[in-house]
């Protein structure tokens, strides 16, 4: 009887398919050309005030190669600032969220280019594999490799760890936390996370109300809540209290609580949704808070 039960069980598992929801995590959109300021599609934060404009001469489309076990892929990034000052400037590496491509997050990069005054800090934003014009296919493993490729590019331009700030928004909290928690080409001196994931498992449990294993749905872990325990550098967390996508209570608060470094800073922005925190906070308030955190 035991043999029959095992046979039936093995047969059932053999009948299962291999569909996973991992790829659904990456809602990328392919582009043939970046438009940045003239992008006509809808994007985060809508239209920024003209005071946050970035001159074309200070916007540099760059490429670099990301290597992972899936192979090499050509990635695209945009550097806001003067390229020849990377060797002496402090630089913010901005890891964007899971939607579309860099054009969608252009406003966010512009705001960071105004932290401490126009181009006080250099800003590098890049598209993960499969996003915009970047080659390849997105995966959790690959976005970590892609972030490291961005670090290597900055390193090749003369950046050192002592002048590196990493900022992750939403999905971008995953590669940001990963490079801050583990050893990569450069080690940031400060970490900022806006509306971070706790983990994919928390998403599952939020939706089902049950303590279901995340493995029932996806192989992607996006386990920031555990990785943040290894982060000892100063950490600034921002989260909207009205975030309907990644709840401040089940995601952000857990990440912040698990941070074990000595210099944590939390900003709970009343009424802010997932994608509008800088606007609800007030652009100048947001910029000033980021500046204060970086410079103190």
């Amino acid at each position, binding site marked *: 009887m035991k043999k029959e039960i095992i046979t039936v069980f093995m047969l*059932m*598992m053999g*009948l*299962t*398919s*291999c*569909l*996973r*929801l991992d790829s*659904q*995590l990456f*809602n990328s959109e392919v582009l043939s050309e970046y438009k940045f300021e003239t992008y006509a599609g809808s994007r985060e934060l809508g239209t920024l005030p003209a005071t946050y404009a970035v001159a074309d001469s200070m916007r540099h489309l760059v490429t670099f190669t990301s290597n992972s076990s899936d192979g090499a892929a050509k990635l695209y990034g945009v550097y806001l600032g003067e390229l020849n000052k990377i060797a002496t400037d402090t630089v913010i590496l901005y890891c964007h969220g*899971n*939607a*579309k491509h860099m054009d969608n997050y252009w406003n966010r990069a512009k705001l960071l280019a105004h932290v401490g005054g126009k181009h006080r800090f250099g800003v590098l934003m890049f598209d993960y594999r499969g996003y915009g014009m970047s080659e390849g296919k997105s995966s959790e493993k690959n976005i970590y490799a892609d972030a490291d490729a961005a670090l290597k590019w900055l390193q090749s331009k003369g950046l050192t760890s002592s002048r590196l700030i990493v900022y992750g928004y939403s999905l971008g909290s995953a590669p940001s936390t990963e490079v801050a928690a583990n050893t990569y080409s450069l080690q940031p001196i400060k970490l900022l996370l806006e509306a971070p994931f*706790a*983990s994919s*498992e*928390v*998403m*599952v*449990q*939020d*939706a*089902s*109300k*049950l*303590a*279901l*294993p*995340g*493995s*029932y*749905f*996806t*192989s992607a872990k996006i386990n920031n*809540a*555990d990785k943040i325990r290894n982060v000892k550098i100063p950490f600034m967390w921002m989260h909207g209290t*009205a*975030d*309907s*996508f*990644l*709840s*401040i*209570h*089940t995601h952000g608060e*857990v990440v912040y609580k*698990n941070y074990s470094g000595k210099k944590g800073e939390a900003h709970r922005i009343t009424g802010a*949704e*997932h*994608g509008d925190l800088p606007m609800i906070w007030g652009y100048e308030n947001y910029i000033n808070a980021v500046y204060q955190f970086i410079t103190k």
Partner: protein
Amino acid sequence: MYVLKIFTVTFTAFTLLACNTTRVVKPLSKGEKQVGAGLGGALITFVGVPMPLPLTNVYGAYGLNDRTTAFASLHTTALLFGVFQTDIGVNQNLLKQKKYIPGISVSPIANLMFDKWDGNFSFYPQVDLNAYWNYGKKQHLLFTTFNNWFELRKTKAHNETQTTHWLPSIGVGHQWHGNKLNWQLEAKYIAPNQPNKNIVVDYIGLGDKGTFGLYIGVSRKF
């Protein structure tokens, strides 16, 4: 947000709670067999349009005696994702129908899940209490059901406290008995004790609690 929502809807496309029609409301006769299939799930807003989650399952039932029927199922949508999910239970009649006074039955059920990826196993006990009325020449069946899922785990991800341990749902359904096939339509209100905001999915409920569910089923008796 639109792009994000596509992800979350897909992500939760087989949310497991209350994900099927009520299997057996009234026990089968002794030795009688029934096979069936179901489709439906919680109502969500997807790209602005209300729709039930497309969860599928198949099941079989067998009348152990005139008052007790055993049943077991296979959740086919979950299977596509490498998760073996079944609910195994018995339906026990407590009271026979007397004209307008409904028959009453109870179904203790074990929901079992196991994934082939990390080998995670889950067990959710469930107790359904049903009231039913047969009527007409074809003995169509009108019923109401009170489902209760229980979460036994004390902690959830990242060792946070699992605060929800009881997830009830109430439902009303109807079975049309044809010459060969029986058709079932059932509506539920799932987890009316739980908030439905800021939890990734746009559930459709009354105010900020719970969600509606809509299900159809087909079965045949032998």
